[in-house]
């Protein structure tokens, strides 16, 4: 009885393992802007808001513009969780209705705060900025397309390090691109063109969904020579990777990009090149287990030698 229970328990654990996504530690201590932001979230945190109308003297309930609604939980998981809204936006937003000239307010760019700051040197903001300005997004749409388009100021969080599962990194990353490339409304905020269907463009890939859940878009859409973890130079589509073997071979480009951190860590621990991909995904052609390889060569070898000896003996008879 107990044995069955144990087996059941183990199975349940195994099946549920992917659901137990890392708990966020951010919520332990309150972010510094928390109190100030409550006021803004009262209106910008939900679909409807109420306010005292001084003219009529009544409390009125209205629908909020859905583009101006932000999830406070996402905000406090983001990299800028310690900010008050009014650190980036004018303090005059504390009044309602908001003064109309605030609409013309100039927004900060990433480099305004992060440029030249040694604290953030490891992110290489200047290099990323340069790369971004070479990308199709920037060259075709100039300043309409800026860093905030992908780095939502109200939710962007960092997924760049070995501590996340590759599947989590991939889905977060690709969701960023899908925000426009799978959503006509957002796409047309930038472009007059019709958004092409991702599935149709990529129908050269067998099992499109599996690929999109296992590799980042930038694996194929940025230069593979660049080993930056998050390459920001999106190349024109003609230069996208189409050749399967770029990934499906032992010298897979994924080693230098997507699997880089996991790879470095695994190598430190075990010095065993295959171990990384082995546990995260099965990339045909790239997952070759050295031991199994050797065993199969030995078995094939023995088979052939056996047959050869047999033939010789038959001929001698």
């Amino acid at each position, binding site marked *: 009885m107990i044995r069955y229970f144990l087996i059941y328990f183990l199975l349940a654990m195994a099946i549920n393992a992917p659901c137990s996504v890392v708990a966020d530690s951010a919520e332990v201590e309150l972010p510094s802007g928390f109190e100030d932001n409550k006021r803004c979230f009262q209106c910008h945190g939900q679909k409807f808001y109420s306010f005292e109308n001084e003219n009529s003297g009544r409390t009125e309930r209205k629908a909020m513009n859905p583009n101006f609604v932000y999830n406070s939980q996402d905000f406090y998981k983001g990299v800028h969780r310690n900010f008050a809204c009014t650190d980036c936006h004018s303090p005059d937003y504390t009044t309602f209705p908001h003064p109309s000239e605030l609409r013309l307010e100039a927004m900060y760019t990433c480099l305004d705060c992060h440029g030249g700051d040694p604290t953030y040197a490891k992110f290489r903001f200047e290099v990323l900025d340069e790369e971004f300005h070479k990308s199709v997004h920037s060259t075709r749409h100039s300043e309409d397309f800026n860093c905030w388009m992908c780095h939502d100021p109200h939710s962007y969080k960092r997924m760049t390090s070995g501590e996340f599962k590759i599947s989590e990194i991939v889905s977060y990353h690709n969701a960023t691109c899908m925000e426009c490339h799978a959503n006509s409304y957002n796409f047309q905020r930038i472009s007059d063109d019709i958004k092409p269907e991702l599935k149709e463009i990529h129908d050269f890939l067998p099992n499109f969904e599996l690929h999109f859940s296992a590799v980042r878009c930038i694996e194929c859409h940025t230069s593979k020579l660049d080993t930056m973890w998050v390459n920001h130079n999106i190349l024109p589509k003609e230069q996208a990777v189409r050749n399967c073997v770029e990934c499906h071979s032992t010298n897979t480009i994924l080693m230098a990009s997507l699997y880089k951190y996991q790879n470095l860590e695994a190598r430190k621990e075990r010095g065993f090149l295959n171990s990384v991909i082995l546990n995260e*995904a*099965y990339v*045909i*052609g790239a997952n070759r287990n050295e031991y199994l390889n050797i065993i199969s060569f030995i*078995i094939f070898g023995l*088979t052939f030698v056996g047959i050869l000896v047999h033939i010789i*003996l038959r001929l001698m008879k």
Partner: protein
Amino acid sequence: MAERLYLYPIWLRIWHGINGILIVILIITGLSLQYSSNEYIRIRFDLAVSLHNISGILLSFNYVFFVIGNFVTGNIRFYILEWKGLADRIFKQSLYYISGMFKGESTPFPVNKDRKFNPLQKVSYIISMYVFVPLVIISGLALLFPEFIIHRVLGFSGIQLTALLHSATGFLISVFLIIHIYICTTGKPVSKNFKSMWTGWHE
């Protein structure tokens, strides 16, 4: 000369021919996928994937045909194992292959209308047809529809384990194929068994 026996009915020969061709395609494309590379010229990866998938699906249908055919025509009787004394019989047959046949001895289990296979053949056919081939088909179909695979099994990727099972079984089938074809050349003359498989008649 022993009596002529009609051992390989037409449906079996058709099954066997299709099976052989498909398995060879699967082995070649499978190896090409497993060892895909940019430096050496192999079958183009996407082409190999398509060929491998199509052949695998055809092989599955062909396998179902084989199993049904075996039951319907009664050919299954050659595949029923008599456990008693099995080890002895296998030993005897092995001894014949590794020594008796060089001394000109005659085969210990000659073919007759109730005994198509010698014990060693029987066991290897049962293992390959009712263990290896089903395993390779099931794991292959699972890889084709990975959404059905349990995502993680005790800390390992389910796809990873399935793929391992698939390539390992594929490998074992390749080994079977090599030995199978070689053993078939031990007829007298060498072409005898192949002729039987072609005409259906055991001479």
